[in-house]
């Protein structure tokens, strides 16, 4: 019996639907713009991105919000394709958090 995909949640028990609107953060808007561009530039299909997200662990998937999950799904794909080096990315992330600034561009 093949295990259900982590994203295959139609009909499963669930709680309250959050009705309050959530402000979309600026970095999330930039993320969407970035992946819009990458989809065309790198000829990445929606199916590849979906598959990448489905490969997350159930814990990771269920505890992530949409934008966090989108980012992680894309990063996983870019690491897989060898376009972004995971070690360098991890180091840069750590430095940004340590410096506590959003201004990382010259």
């Amino acid at each position: 019996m093949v295990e259900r995909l982590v994203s295959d949640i139609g009909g499963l028990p669930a709680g309250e639907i959050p009705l309050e609107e959530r402000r979309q953060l600026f970095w999330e808007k930039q993320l969407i713009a970035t992946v819009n561009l990458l989809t065309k530039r790198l000829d990445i299909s929606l199916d590849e991105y979906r598959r990448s997200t489905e490969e997350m662990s159930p814990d990771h998937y269920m505890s992530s919000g949409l934008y966090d999950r989108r980012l992680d799904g894309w990063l996983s794909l870019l690491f897989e394709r060898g376009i972004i080096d995971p070690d360098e990315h991890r180091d840069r992330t750590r430095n940004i958090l340590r410096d506590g600034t959003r201004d990382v561009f010259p």
Partner: protein
Amino acid sequence: MSSPDPLFRVGQAVRILDLGKPGHVRTPTYVRNKIGLVERCCGKFDNPEERAYRRRGNLVYLYRVRLRQPDLWPGYDQHTADTLDVEIYEHWLAAEPRDS
């Protein structure tokens, strides 16, 4: 492995299969092994099961299948006319003989 013409007609009874296929598939579990009617043929699309791994498969026909909610959920309430439409690729469907 796609047919030149659609295999199924609008209004035809079909069973949504469970192919037991691991990896990226777009057939939700809750509609597998259920019987419905073809609502429309949506045309041919890249097989997502191939595209997800950067493989170029053949184009496959996509259909919308209409199901009755009471068939999907035991104890669905008294609104037995409620329906659900879902998109299914041709290789996940089989003709269902209408003898029930």
